[in-house]
């Protein structure tokens, strides 16, 4: 293909962040089809929503500081926790890692110039933004902010006068954006791997994204149609979920969880992929059990489709269905355990340098282990009956989704930051932020596990006096956590302009994204990469005696 040589030169040297002549400023960003810029556009939008969601969560905790009404009444409280959930789930965690880090890193790790459908990728971003705007608009249009909880359970969501209709359509649109991203990633992985890179030569983050994308494609349409039906139930009264018309509210829950259980693996699998990148890099040794980790991602994706019923153990499902879903649920624990054991084995006899991304990864393993292990009591029938719909679930959920997905994303951000911007953040400040986040996190969410076992139901604006102590502890934890997160964002934002120049491969990592310059050029690689070794082959790094200038912490 005869492209003018100057264009080719521009595409393979310099930085993707440089402005193109004639395509400056905001317009240049809004019309870009470069996967890296699109990733950063997602980052800008999503972290904004994350901060909004965090502020709402902070409000919830303040209200729960003591029994009785502190400063927001029941109605407002119900809207606040619903919005916290809707924003965090639909606008942040579900699309988060794939859209931000997946977009940026996947083509680089595969040695490709871009994703398979670059323009579709930009379209996904716009679809996402339309969904986000609709979600925000639902707050102000007649009816007011939704108060259903993020699950939109019928018949409450059908009857309530708040603006559920807009919110569910927004969720539908957001789902469509996820589907497009999923299609794009699967095709990219199938078609654009560098010469010499087989499926089992891919970095494990790609495997995580691959499994995730399949879930997005297969599961999202089901919730899409369910939410449309909920909308029509409100507007036309079609009766599918309305008991007075012969409908069954439990069927809504089936359809909702058919999507929403697999989707927790959409949130968690890419985070597991990130951890699988960070551990070998800082242990400077190949990952233990590559195939086992890759295959366990696929296994989790598949088994994840079989277990949705464990969200419904108390709704009056048949007893047969209850025990079948219970036993299937336990089989998800096995591939998850396999991953954790393999990660531990990767540290064994490594040459470990403890730096910020590794700190996040280790913290992740700890938090996610709590998340996973507390899930066992939800899978077992007798115990789940007691803790279902209590603060225990809220605690467990945050350990997996926040401790798992979001802390994993933070780990990835600190790991790839020098690649994305070519600069390094202040590692000392980053370590402080990490410490605050870890302490705050556990102080915030561990008491919820205790409260739940004591019998504190979830989504309560007020509570009985026996629960006061642990609620107070939890609220104090939220202050520490928020301080840590703000410090982390401050540190990263500052480093975009003021950080030290990082170098192309500051950690001594082995996957392809580290073999191009930092930040990468527009077309990612000056020389088309050809792969001759496995993804975690440290021979070259060790031979060079690679010793990055920064010392171990």
């Amino acid at each position, binding site marked *: *293909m005869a*492209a003018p040589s100057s264009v*080719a030169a521009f*595409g*393979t040297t310099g930085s993707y962040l440089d402005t193109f002549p004639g395509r400056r400023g905001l317009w240049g960003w809004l019309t870009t089809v470069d996967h890296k810029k699109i990733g950063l556009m997602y980052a800008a939008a999503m972290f904004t929503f994350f901060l909004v969601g965090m502020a709402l969560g902070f409000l919830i905790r303040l209200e729960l500081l003591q029994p009785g009404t502190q400063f927001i009444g029941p109605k407002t409280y119900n809207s606040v926790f619903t919005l916290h959930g809707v924003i965090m789930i639909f606008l942040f965690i579900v699309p988060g890692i794939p859209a931000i880090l997946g977009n940026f890193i996947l083509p680089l790790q595969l040695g*490709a*110039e871009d994703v398979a459908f670059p323009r579709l990728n930009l379209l996904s971003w716009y679809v996402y933004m339309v969904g986000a705007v609709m979600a925000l608009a639902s707050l102000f249009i007649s009816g007011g902010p939704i108060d259903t909880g993020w699950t939109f359970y019928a018949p409450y969501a059908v009857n309530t006068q708040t603006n559920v209709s807009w919110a569910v359509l927004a969720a539908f649109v957001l789902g469509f954006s996820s589907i497009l991203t999923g299609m794009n990633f699967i095709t990219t992985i*199938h*078609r*654009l791997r560098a*010469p010499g890179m087989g499926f089992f030569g891919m970095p494990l983050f790609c495997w995580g994204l691959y499994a995730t994308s*399949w879930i997005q494609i*297969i599961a999202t349409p*089901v919730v899409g149609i369910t939410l449309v039906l909920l909308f029509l139930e409100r507007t036309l009264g079609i009766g599918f979920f309305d008991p007075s018309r012969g409908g069954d509210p*439990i069927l809504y829950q*089936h359809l909702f969880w*058919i999507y929403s259980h697999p989707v927790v693996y959409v949130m968690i699998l890419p985070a597991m992929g990130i951890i699988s990148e960070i551990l070998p890099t800082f242990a400077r040794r190949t990952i233990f059990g590559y195939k086992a980790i890759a295959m366990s991602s696929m296994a989790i994706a598949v088994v994840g*489709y*079989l277990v*949705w*019923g464990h969200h419904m153990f108390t709704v009056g*499902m*048949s*007893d*047969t*269905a209850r025990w*079948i*879903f219970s036993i299937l649920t336990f089989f998800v624990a096995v591939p998850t355990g396999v991953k954790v054991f393999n990660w531990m084995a990767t540290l064994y006899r490594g040459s470990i340098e403890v730096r910020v991304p590794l700190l996040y990864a280790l913290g992740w393993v700890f938090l996610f282990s709590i998340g996973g292990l507390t899930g066992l009591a939800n899978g077992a029938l007798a115990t789940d009956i007691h803790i279902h719909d209590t603060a225990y679930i809220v605690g467990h959920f945050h350990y997996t989704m926040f401790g798992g997905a979001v802390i994993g994303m933070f780990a990835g951000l600190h790991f790839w930051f020098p690649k994305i911007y070519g600069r390094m953040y202040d590692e000392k400040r980053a370590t402080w932020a990490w410490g605050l986040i870890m302490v705050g996190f556990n102080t915030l969410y561990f008491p919820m596990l205790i409260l739940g076992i004591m019998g504190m139901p979830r989504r309560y604006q007020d509570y009985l006096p026996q629960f006061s102590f642990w609620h107070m502890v939890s609220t104090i934890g939220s202050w520490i956590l928020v301080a840590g997160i703000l410090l982390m964002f401050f540190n990263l934002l500052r480093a975009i302009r003021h950080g030290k120049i990082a170098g192309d491969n500051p950690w001594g990592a082995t996957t392809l994204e580290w073999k191009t310059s930092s930040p990468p050029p527009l*077309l990612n*690689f000056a*020389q*088309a990469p050809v792969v001759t070794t496995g993804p975690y082959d440290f021979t070259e790094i060790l031979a060079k005696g690679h010793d990055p200038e920064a010392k171990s912490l």
Partner: protein
Amino acid sequence: MNHSHSMTHGGNARPHVLPDGLFVGIWVGLLLLTAATVSASVFFPGKIGILVAVLVTPAKAALILMYFMHLKYEKPAFVAMFLVAVGILAIFMGLTFFDYLHR
């Protein structure tokens, strides 16, 4: 910029074009199968009609998939992916019925 060529490997081979007569034949087959289902439901309403529909409808679907949609001539990976999608849909249905059939 040479590496862009390396990515086109195997992607753009001339397609495998089936003869038009085959398509017409499939179409006739589809119409006959439709006629079979309809007449079964008219003349044997109830169990037999349903049984015929249950057997014939997937056969029609398979004809459309394999020939009109060319799936028979695609790489096995396409067929595998299709089966995964359909299989998971079947799982959704099957597991849901563990609830509804045992209430």
